[in-house]
């Protein structure tokens, strides 16, 4: 039986960060993810690496957030972008609420290289963002940083791998065995091979977000979390130049961020006891978000909704307060206190803290295993962050449109050059497979060869395939064939892959279906049913969790 120093359960932002830190400190590390890297909670967030503005009543959290922004900019500059955010004020009463927050915020702006909170006149606000309501009385201006959450996780996993870690996706932990009061083995079901495998571990770290209670239960431990659903509505274009944050209909803060070629509006907050895999955005959540933004961006309904997405916040079990007042700090639970030593779970936390969370738990693990060596995850850059890339020069050299290369660079940094090199032998790989984003054939092949996607949906997380206005209508069959070539899929596997990806997209397209999306769906059915006859051809389709319950 293979023995590992550390088994990390969960391939989200925290899990991949833990695997990276452990591997960098020389621990023999295995990461087990039941689905794909970044396939759950982190994949449904907006990617904001928040300065902690909203959490001014927790100064320690603001310190932590601000330091981590600096670290992430240092290690992953190529996937970090700055976005100005306006807080439009419609009413004098709204001004008084921000005082303490501004003060705390301004203490920490210098290290991130952003200005203090600026108060803009209505004219200045509308010059920056003409779509704001003409009757606003002022707006606050701040600058926040965003990271591509999918790329962050994949790069952390790749870097962990380069430091000797083993990354296993589609491996679902089914048992944690305990011997003499300590973790001993972990058994998992490998969904790709259909086999059960067991490995020995000195330490097990559960970085499973909303599934932390379930994983703890496998070790006979009861762990309470407060699960809270958050939904986003995604629009087909960038409806504003900058981010907007405002109070929702119920007084909570919500935001609207231009994001890649789309706009994200989020989030809702609903306490949930449902299976996180079965959650779908409700009509009320869609209306809640649109109605909330109509107050400050009256034209918000003119854009077309392309989909909704939903995730679950794995919050600390703090009750009887609204979601926004629950601490955003994280906690490492040492299950030694429950009689299982060597087993740790995370609860709480935010995307921006993932590296810090990893550092903290790895320190504990190193001490336990008597390993010396200090954390370097905030010093050593992630893959792709090397010398500057000259997009215009490369665009000319390889005959690829510069707007496509700009986007490629934002995902890949200097890996871009390796991808372009692939097109020397195969100039046809400069085909734009996904035209909305756009995504090039060669990038898809590169991702398949180096980033272990098993499905088209995994590929979406690597390269943003099918995330634009057409929501995979025209790229799915093309990308499926590329995947078939690279992975040696059979014809029927290729067809199943197409239907599988259409199903995944449909989850988010169905709740907001209206307007031009009706024509889009008619085209989808025209292509894949009417002509492709796939509803007759694909026989081994596996229903998704959210499909089985209704």
């Amino acid at each position, binding site marked *: 039986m293979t023995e590992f120093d550390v088994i990390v359960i969960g391939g989200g932002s925290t899990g991949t960060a833990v695997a990276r830190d452990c591997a960098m400190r020389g621990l023999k590390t295995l990461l087990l993810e039941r689905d794909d890297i970044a396939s759950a909670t982190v994949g449904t967030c907006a990617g904001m690496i928040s300065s902690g503005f909203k959490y001014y009543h927790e100064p320690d959290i603001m310190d932590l957030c601000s330091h981590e922004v600096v670290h992430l900019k240092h290690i992953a500059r190529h996937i970090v972008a700055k976005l100005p955010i306006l807080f439009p004020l419609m009413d004098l009463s709204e001004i008084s609420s921000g005082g303490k927050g501004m003060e705390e915020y301004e203490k920490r702006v210098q290290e991130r290289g952003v200005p203090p909170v600026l108060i803009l006149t209505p004219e200045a606000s509308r010059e920056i963002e003409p779509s704001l309501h003409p009757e606003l009385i002022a707006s606050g201006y701040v600058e926040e940083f965003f990271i591509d959450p999918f790329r962050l996780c994949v790069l952390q996993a790749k870097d962990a791998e380069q430091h000797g870690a083993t990354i296993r996706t589609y491996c679902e932990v089914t048992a944690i065995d305990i011997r003499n009061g300590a973790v001993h083995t972990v058994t998992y079901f490998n969904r790709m091979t259909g086999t059960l495998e067991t490995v020995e571990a000195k330490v097990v770290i559960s970085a499973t977000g909303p599934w932390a209670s379930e994983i703890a239960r496998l070790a006979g431990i009861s762990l309470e979390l407060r699960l809270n659903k958050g939904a986003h509505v995604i629009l087909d274009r960038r409806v504003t130049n900058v981010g907007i944050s405002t109070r929702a209909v119920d007084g909570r803060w919500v935001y609207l961020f231009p994001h890649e070629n789309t706009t994200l509006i989020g989030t809702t907050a609903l306490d949930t006891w449902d299976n996180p895999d079965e959650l779908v955005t409700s009509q009320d959540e869609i209306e809640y978000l649109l109605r909330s933004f109509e107050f400050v961006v009256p034209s918000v309904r003119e854009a077309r909704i392309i989909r909704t997405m939903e995730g679950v916040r794995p919050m600390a079990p703090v009750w009887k307060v609204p979601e926004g007042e629950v601490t955003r700090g994280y906690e490492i639970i040492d299950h030694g206190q429950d009689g299982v030593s060597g087993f740790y779970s995370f609860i709480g936390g935010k995307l921006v803290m993932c590296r810090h969370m990893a550092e903290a738990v790895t320190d504990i693990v190193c001490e336990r295993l008597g390993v010396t060596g200090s954390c370097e995850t905030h010093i050593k850059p992630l893959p792709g962050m090397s010398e500057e890339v000259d997009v215009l020069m490369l665009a000319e050299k390889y005959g690829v449109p510069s707007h496509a290369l700009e986007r490629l660079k934002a995902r890949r940094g200097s890996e871009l050059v390796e991808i372009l090199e692939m097109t020397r032998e195969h100039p*046809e790989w400069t085909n734009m497979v996904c035209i909305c984003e756009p995504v090039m054939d060669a990038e898809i092949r590169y991702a398949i060869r180096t980033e272990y996607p098993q499905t088209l949906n995994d590929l979406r997380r690597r390269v943003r395939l099918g995330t634009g206005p057409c929501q995979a209508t025209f790229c799915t069959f093309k990308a499926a064939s590329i995947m078939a070539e690279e992975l040696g899929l059979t*014809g029927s596997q290729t067809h199943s892959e197409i239907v599988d990806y259409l199903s995944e997209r*449909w989850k988010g397209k*169905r709740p907001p279906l209206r307007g031009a999306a*009706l024509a889009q769906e*008619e085209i989808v059915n025209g292509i894949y*049913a009417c002509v492709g006859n*796939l509803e007759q051809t694909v026989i081994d389709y596996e229903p998704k969790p959210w499909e089985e319950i209704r």
Partner: protein
Amino acid sequence: MDADYDIVVIGGGLAGLTAGISAAQMNANTLVVRKGEGATSLSSGALDIAGYLRGGETPFLTPEEGVAALAHVYPFHPYSVLESIPSLGLKEIVSWLKDILAGSPSAMIGSHDTTTMALTILGTKKPTCLVQRTMHTTRLDNTDETLLFAGIKGLADFNPSTASKALMESVIAGETGPHKIVHTLLECSPFRQPSNISPVELARYIETEDGLDRIIKELQHCTEQTGTTLIALPPILGLVNPIEIKKRIEEETGTEIFELLSFPPSVPGYRLQRSLEASLKKAGGTLLVGHEAVSFKKQEGKIIDITLKSPRRTFNTHPKSVILATGKFVGGGLAGNRTGLRETVFDLPVLDGTRQSVQDVRPSHLTRVVPLHKEGHPLFECGIGFDTRFRPIDVKGDIFASNLFAAGSVLCGYNYPVEKSGLGVALVTGRICGVHAAENVTGGN
């Protein structure tokens, strides 16, 4: 400005053009107006009539049987009207269309009493009725053929390796088909483009002497090496002279070639659209593109005025009959917001397949939990209700206007993506509406 026509057809896809041609052939002064390009040009260019019952898995043996079955199982299906019009049977309508298109780039092969299982670019097969001559082959069922799937380097729309694997798997699983299937990518870089080539560009390229020579040379090279007897190509055989191009390649390679059914942008869809437009002109009808019907006047139960608008002008017509053939969501005949569906020209009530109103039904409630389903989404059965002369009915179930007819996918009661009945219903209803509208004008009936 006013312009007078006996008949105004709103919508110029297959349903509208069929109606317009039928009316013009009966000497009615006919105008077909169209807002955009329409959904027909996005079609595969094959004409489905009836493939399956909703939820069924066995294709109908013949389109004729399918039409009867659909009419029988779904009393509100547009095909159910056919029984009451003995003079306009399926057989007559199909051969009428074949005559109309004979000699055009989209000349059709097939018959109302044979289901054709046509091969698609995914390597799947689907039941259809008529295919364009360039898409036709009888040799797909021969086990001793060597079939070559030939893609084009830089054309992302078609991957010959996927198609050949899929077809080979179905042959191994027991379906009849060639026992030898190979695939290749032809190198031709049309107009010096190595990638991002569209099927339409290829169709234009193959119509140049250089382009055709290049493709023939590539195919010759490949067929010699593999002993190919039959070649499947994506639909790129030209926009104007595809039949001659097909013949020329067949002579030069000693093989039979045929085009696969494909997705938009679709060269055969474009050809079909253009051929029908030419037929309308030949029959004496007028086509106005870029015009939208924006308002109408009704008096004593009749439409007496239609206002047509283009970006540059607005004018009125006073037709004796009006045919609504505006299509579904892609065509623009139906629209929907979060609270329900509506018809876009006359604000007619929109009904589902069982003739219940969906004016106040949220569109997502008319869909299933999976995107592709054998039963189809009820959403695509929605449209306007009609009487046995295809006259739209209002909320009370009465006809909306005695001189208004409706054809094609604006009608409720059929689910074309799963029934494979799209262009078939457009053809049958368009033909019947055209004849009825013309009779209405000339005073017959």
